[in-house]
């Protein structure tokens, strides 16, 4: 998507009361976690900007910024790995557990990690 198309899209949203701030709930949660961790002084905004920039500058970054929150999550993972809070492998395992828990949860009920049929 060209810059002009991105602008046109954004202005279309603006006509409809600005459109949603986040395209999907996980983006909102990922955003808020970074704000919360900064509040806890886990990192400075400068550190965060460096981490996010490193992800955004990776080869293959999309021109239309539709991968922006993917980069955001990757930056968060890199920072918490760097600070020895969790390794990427820990996050992989837990994410898989969440997906199994979702599969095992009947429709209409909240997805809980305890619903994962495999022992952790």
């Amino acid at each position, binding site marked *: 998507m060209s810059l002009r198309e991105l602008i046109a899209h954004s202005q279309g949203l603006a006509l409809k009361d600005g459109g949603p701030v986040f395209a999907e709930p996980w983006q909102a949660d990922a955003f808020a976690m970074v704000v919360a961790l900064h509040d806890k002084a886990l990192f400075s*905004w400068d550190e965060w900007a460096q981490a996010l920039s490193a992800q955004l500058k990776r080869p293959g970054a999309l021109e239309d910024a539709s991968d922006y929150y993917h980069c955001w999550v990757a930056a968060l993972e890199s920072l918490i790995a760097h600070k020895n809070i969790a390794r990427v492998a820990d*996050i992989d395992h837990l994410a898989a557990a969440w997906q199994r828990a979702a599969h095992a949860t009947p429709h209409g009920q909240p997805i809980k990690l305890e619903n994962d049929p495999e022992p952790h």
Partner: protein
Amino acid sequence: MAHDHDDHHHDNELDPMAARVRALETILTQKGLVDPAAIDAIVETYETKVGPHIGAKVVAKAWSDPQFADWLKRDATAAIASLGISGRQGEHMQAVFNTADTHNLVVCTLCSCYPWSVLGLPPVWYKSPPYRSRAVIDPRGVLAEFDLVLPETTNIRVWDSTAELRYLVIPLRPDGTDALSEAQLAKLVTRDAMIGTGIALAPEAA
């Protein structure tokens, strides 16, 4: 997900990113670093409370109150805080005033630093590689993409945001607005005018 052709259809699915973010939240909650209630409160703030209407109030006050405008020029962080707007991120703000000779444009070439407390979260184009790379090299060309064509004699000054210092453009007050109240003036101030990719609306267009 193609529901009709999926032999292994399950009632609930978490896509990989949603599962990943849940995993991160689980780990960070277990370690006492985040509180799910606080996460919800932050999301609600950015989804419903913070947005360009806040920055528009700052601009309208600067247009109406020369003393406030002067304060905003000298110490935007304090002047904005005096209106009860808290930069909860603790970042410093600088207000850059458009003049008859100079138009200001804000970008973050590094990532997507943006004055959240007065404008909310940035539009998609602000975060996009073409805007971030071209705003500095070819600001006039970028403004043309926004259908903003400035006289050749107008200087364009580009401000590259950082994590610690974020900019708010104070657009020129439109003509024919002498009789308007601050609340009426605020309606003329668009998000793009405060980034510098637009100008304030004329009163008849608002």
